């Protein structure tokens, strides 16, 4: 098999995942996109391992490790998302503004710990201005 097939598929999957990470507003959708990126990397590693006939099977070993890392990260990630949801009532990235640099002198919440009364999910159609406050940067 021509090596370009798995390599190109992996590259395209990675970029699809990258789009998802940057464009999606709901955090869980962002997590799904990260999973796509990691799968793309795994496909690369397996393809290269088979091509190189690596005696140590470094590619396959790292693939298994990446799968384990991804599972661990999803576990922690979802726990964090649930925590944010419980504290805030929404899992919408654009609405996480309390920590931004450009707050006024009193800051967003001054470290207060009162939970919001409402726990309805976010359905506002706010235009989501400017740079993504999660501050995600990429190479």
């Amino acid at each position: 098999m021509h090596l370009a097939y798995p390599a190109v598929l992996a590259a395209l999957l990675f970029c699809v995942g990258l789009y998802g990470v940057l464009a999606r507003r709901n955090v869980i959708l962002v997590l799904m996109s990260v999973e796509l990126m990691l799968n793309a990397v795994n496909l690369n590693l397996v393809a290269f391992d088979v091509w190189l006939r690596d005696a140590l099977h470094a590619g396959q070993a790292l693939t298994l490790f990446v799968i384990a890392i991804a599972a661990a990260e999803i576990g922690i990630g979802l726990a964090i998302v649930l925590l944010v949801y419980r504290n805030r009532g929404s899992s919408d990235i654009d609405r996480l503004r309390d920590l931004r640099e450009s707050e006024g002198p009193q800051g967003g919440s001054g470290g207060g710990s009162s939970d919001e009364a409402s726990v309805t999910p976010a359905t506002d159609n706010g235009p989501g201005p400017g740079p993504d406050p999660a501050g995600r940067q990429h190479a």
Partner: protein
Amino acid sequence: MNLAAGHPGFLSPTGVEIVFVLVGLATLGAALVTVTTKRLVHAALWLVAALGGVAVEYLLLTAEFIAWVQVLIYVGSVVVLLLFGLMLTKAPIVPPITRDDPSYAEVRAQATADADSGNRWIALAVALAAAATLVTVVVDAFRSTWIDLDESVAGSAKVTGVALFRHWVLPFEALSVLLLAALVGAIVLSKRRKGGER
């Protein structure tokens, strides 16, 4: 010719390539739908399709053990966790009303409203630029390189197991700490907090 599934000589080389490309297209399509659909639960389900497609690709590359691990862990638990997460954060889901219902348009709009952020056009530009770069680099590098799939299965359970435990013990053991830390961290973050905690 041995027709047993999993035998490396099962499909002719051209056959393997054709199947690989077809499954690859399906995987890519499913991934695209995952990142663009406005309906959150559908995104999770298309993700299952994408991950399953990748598992089939692993099988075609004769990495059998990894294919099954992929199915077990990714499709089996990661997606289930994501669905749990969607449900527990009360992700907006279109309720079962028909199109005839007068409020259908409004309900659907409300349920699909916040899937995408405002800067998705920038994201698209970035992703397209990255895709162009990576595909060019990769195609240029592997213009005339072929994988030889005729030899022994590269990723059977035995081969992978031997490789892991002969050569990769240290990261394997370190991962056990990682998994335990993930477990403990996830539990402690999800527990209801005790009284008096700040």
